[in-house]
């Protein structure tokens, strides 16, 4: 385990974005679960065209937190001059913020004084990483690596409160590739972790569709037991259904000015998402019920007057089934990202 992460998870931008910057994107995404809160931290690099026509990297840091009531937080955009990647491709620095890939996990330092958000977290891997390469996304392709279960220790100050992390479960994914926001794709990406610290299961779900969500292009369900993958359900083995609408406005829209162009509060975050997977004697049934969500909006790179919205939703989850003859039955928490182009 100690060498796996460092070999697999390094920052791609200095090599891939330099060679061919057009449309290149990379982001590190962390979600930490506490009994009474969820924290989402995201470091992203986006290759954009500057006014002189030259490509430039635009780094952003997003930190949002959900307590029992609602999502709050901030997103900050930095200049390329405030970005640094270490020579060994293991340390990403954006202003006063830093993400370090260590042999056994990650260290994240957050310093967003303009949003009164600060923190330091150590995230130790409790499961093997899993990588998927070159999946079609609109006209482009994206690769990703995820670590479904980590242990988080540290602290975060946000919304005037200090949150401490002591062995809390967390999830991480790292994505990189070339595509354009607003292209012909949408996705649902979710991670479910049990509420009980001793429960060994972790689930990650992914579904890619066209932008109108009429065609499912790919979907899969991954299940871990402790630090080992227990089952992978490929597209043909997975059935997904969305039920109803949550019928609640977003807790927040980030960055705030994007609310002006999003045209209202209506959303299509479902009331319930049902995932059923069966393969070779294994079966899993997962149900996720969103409770609230934050909208992370950015301009479409395809249309001048459109925006792309990622709904980061948190909620409760129930998972039942059987894998390798062992029963699964737990309740937990889910954080699902819904990109509805």
């Amino acid at each position, binding site marked *: 385990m100690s060498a796996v992460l460092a070999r697999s998870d390094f920052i791609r931008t200095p090599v891939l974005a330099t060679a061919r910057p057009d449309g290149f994107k990379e982001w590190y995404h962390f979600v930490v679960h506490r009994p009474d809160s969820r924290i989402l931290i995201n470091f992203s690099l986006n290759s*954009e065209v500057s006014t002189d026509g030259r490509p430039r990297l635009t780094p952003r840091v997003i930190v949002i937190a959900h307590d029992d009531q609602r999502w709050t937080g901030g997103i900050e955009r930095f200049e390329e001059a405030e970005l640094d990647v270490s020579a060994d491709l293991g340390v990403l620095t954006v202003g006063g913020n830093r993400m370090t890939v260590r042999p056994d996990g990650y260290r994240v330092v957050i310093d967003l004084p303009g949003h009164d958000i600060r923190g330091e977290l150590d995230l130790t891997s409790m499961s093997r990483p899993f990588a998927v390469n070159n999946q079609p996304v609109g006209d482009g392709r994206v690769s990703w690596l995820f670590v479904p279960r980590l242990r988080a220790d540290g602290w975060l100050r946000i919304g005037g409160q200090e949150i401490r992390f002591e062995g809390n479960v967390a999830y991480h994914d790292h994505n990189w590739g070339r595509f354009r926001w607003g292209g012909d794709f949408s996705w649902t990406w979710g991670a479910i972790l049990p509420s009980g610290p001793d429960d060994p299961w972790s689930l990650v779900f992914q579904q890619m569709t066209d932008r109108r969500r009429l065609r499912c292009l790919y979907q899969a369900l991954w299940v871990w037991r402790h630090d080992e993958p227990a089952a992978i359900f490929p597209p043909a083995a997975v059935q997904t259904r969305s039920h109803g609408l949550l019928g609640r406005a977003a807790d927040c829209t980030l960055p705030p000015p994007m609310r002006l*162009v999003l045209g209202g509060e209506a959303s299509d975050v479902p009331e319930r998402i049902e995932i059923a997977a069966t393969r070779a004697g294994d079966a899993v049934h997962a149900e996720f019920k969103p409770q609230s969500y934050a909208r992370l909006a950015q*301009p479409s790179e395809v249309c001048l*007057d459109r925006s792309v919205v990622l709904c980061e939703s948190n909620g409760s989850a129930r998972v039942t089934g059987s894998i390798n003859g062992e029963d699964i039955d737990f309740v937990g928490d889910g954080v699902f990202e819904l990109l509805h182009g």
Partner: protein
Amino acid sequence: MPASYRHMLEALGPLVVEVDVDGELFSLRGGRRLEVTDGPAGVSGARIASSRAAILDLLDAKLGLDEAVQAGAVSVCGSLDDILRAHDTLLAYVHAAVRAPSHPELLAALRTGPR
């Protein structure tokens, strides 16, 4: 962002918009390029009045544009067609602004000074 700028000019069309922010008047008119002129517009199709504080509240998403109009924090006068065109121009401007690398600095400048 040249393409966004042209898109905003297309949205504005022949409309002349008079804007009043805390009593400071200026007007916008389109054509081959956007012209911003100090003082009243004389003849305008739409007149918008607001305050720096209300504009910052909108940008900070403390309230939506519809809420601001209903609360009187933003007032809009004109024919229905002109108001709709002014609204479309505003949206085109915001779409352009969020794509422009210069805009964070402009927003920071707007924030300085009393609300």
